């Protein structure tokens, strides 16, 4: 399928999907004015395990399998030369995670990148995408789970603080499959991620979690969209964010759509934000549209608050100094989600990064 790169998708900032995003900081990714550079920064780290294949395939041979009204996604689909394809064969159970790295970036021009991950029937796999360094990146990752497939999908946005990154992570879940994602965004000048899920078979389960920490001047946006179009699918969303510093801005949108056919749907989404200083702003908008009443459950919750004085008092009353107490509380706040990453090295690295973000508070 080819998408016409016409201008009708070009955002003006008045659209619901773009109203929180500072378009002037997108380096022209959204309106085609950016200079693109031929850079294929995504690389596989380590040896291929049996049952795994990674290749670059011409775009014409790997057409997109989903629709998107996002201007940058459409641009990616129409402009990339080839697609990075990761195939995991049927009935494969990977002992180790597959690591994809994006580090050879650069902010001299924009990179457009399309990625496809195919997880075969009844397979179990983990894929980790690690982003770091400076980059201007427009990205679309499509993830296709065959019946009975189980994928843990971890993306780390540990960008340098001048990076611009927009991406869609679109998962398509067939019957009895499980998609568990952990999205970590701690770096970048502007990061706008669209974790989206589409169910095509019953009995499937999407479990989306994420952590973000914005400091002065950072805009970190996560727009979740879950489309329940088939019966008896389940979804859970749990994102936690912290903000500190002048102009730190986070946006969390949680759109869940339960179509008439989606009887027996079970969904719950949660977003919690911790404001660590003045001058920061957290937007949090859960949204549920329901076309059938024949469901197991549907709910959402959103909270934004400051440090809990009672928690700090309790810790300090045991001799723990205030900085250490704040560190414990923030680490604890994020631990619920970071502990889902079954890689102790990454866990510890993220906690250290969170500590260093926290040290900027009040400076």
């Amino acid at each position: 399928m080819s998408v016409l790169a016409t201008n009708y998708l070009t955002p003006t900032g008045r659209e619901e999907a773009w109203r929180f995003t500072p378009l002037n900081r997108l380096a022209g990714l959204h309106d085609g004015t950016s200079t693109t550079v031929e850079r294929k920064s995504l690389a596989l780290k380590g040896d291929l395990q049996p049952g795994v294949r990674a290749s670059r395939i011409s775009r014409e041979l790997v057409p997109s399998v989903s629709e998107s009204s996002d201007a940058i996604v459409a641009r990616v689909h129409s402009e990339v030369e080839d697609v990075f394809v990761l195939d995991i064969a049927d009935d494969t159970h990977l002992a180790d995670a597959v690591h994809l790295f994006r580090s050879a970036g650069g902010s001299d021009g924009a990179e457009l990148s399309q990625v496809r991950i195919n997880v075969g029937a009844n397979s179990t796999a983990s894929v980790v995408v690690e982003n770091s360094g400076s980059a201007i990146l427009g990205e679309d990752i499509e993830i296709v789970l065959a019946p009975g497939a189980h994928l843990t999908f971890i993306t780390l946005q540990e960008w340098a603080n001048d990076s611009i990154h927009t991406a869609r992570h679109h998962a398509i879940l067939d019957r009895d499959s499980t998609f568990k994602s952990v999205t970590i965004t701690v770096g970048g000048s502007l990061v706008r991620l669209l974790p989206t899920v589409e169910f095509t078979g019953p009995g499937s389960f999407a479990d989306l979690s994420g952590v973000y920490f914005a400091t002065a001047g950072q805009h970190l946006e996560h727009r979740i969209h879950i489309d329940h179009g088939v019966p008896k699918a389940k979804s859970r969303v749990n994102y936690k964010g912290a903000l500190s510093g002048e102009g730190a801005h986070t946006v969390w949108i949680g759109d869940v759509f339960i179509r008439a056919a989606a009887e027996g749907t079970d969904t719950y989404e949660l977003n919690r934000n911790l404001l660590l200083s003045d001058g920061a702003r957290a937007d949090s908008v859960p949204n549920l549209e329901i076309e059938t009443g024949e469901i197991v459950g549907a709910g959402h919750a959103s909270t934004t608050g400051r440090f809990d004085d009672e928690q700090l008092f309790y810790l300090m009353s045991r001799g723990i100094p205030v900085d250490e107490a704040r560190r414990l509380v923030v680490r604890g706040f994020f631990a619920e989600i970071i502990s889902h990453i079954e890689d102790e090295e990454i866990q510890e690295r993220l906690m250290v990064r969170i500590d260093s973000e926290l040290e900027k508070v009040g400076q």
Partner: protein
Amino acid sequence: MSTLEIRGLEVSVITDKGAIEILKGVDLTIRSGETHAIMGPNGSGKSTLAYSIAGHPKYTVTGGSVILDGADVLAMKVDERAKAGLFLAMQYPVEVPGVSVSNFLRTAATALRGEAPKLRTWVGEVKAAMNALNMDPGFSERNVNEGFSGGEKKRHEIMQLELLRPKIAILDETDSGLDVDALRIVSEGVNRAKAANDLGVLLITHYTRILRYIKPDFVHVFANGHIVEEGGPELADKLEEKGYAEYVGS
């Protein structure tokens, strides 16, 4: 030998309707090895006394002094009060999500002792303290106070009392919400801490039943923001019989 001297302590809380005076001049001296019971009706200001000594930000001290071994407690930050040797076992211990009991205890012990306790001896110390309080070994991997039953919260407070070894401990209604067995176990923990460290105890309670397990040297009746009567253990017997009626109302 430590001495905590509370002199003419006056404390207010700031509300939407302005400052409300809760403590109206409290005088009390607690020495190492002594156990003082403060008894009084609900709303008399007993918990305010406990939290004010520990430095809770909700309370504003408007007069008086609190001195521990010559040092001005009211000038200290909350963590400095703990380092000076004060401990508050809370009536409603606070949940700290994502922070395990073992991490919390070790962080606190490190802060109070000035260096991280040696891992091997520390693990043994924690195990012994948990055993003594009949606590499940898996307890240390749970998050601080999260999902704890009332009894577990109180055992956790007393476990800290034993591990952190303060000079003076304030126990704020540690007996509330405990069944008979838990009350005995928790009381034995307090008595062990007294014996081990010559601890001075300020025991705040509404009921006399905990005094069967932790014997007070002095009993103070607290009403309307100050101490209205003082005596020995026999005063508790009188309260058991007659209640607080004669101290409240005008």
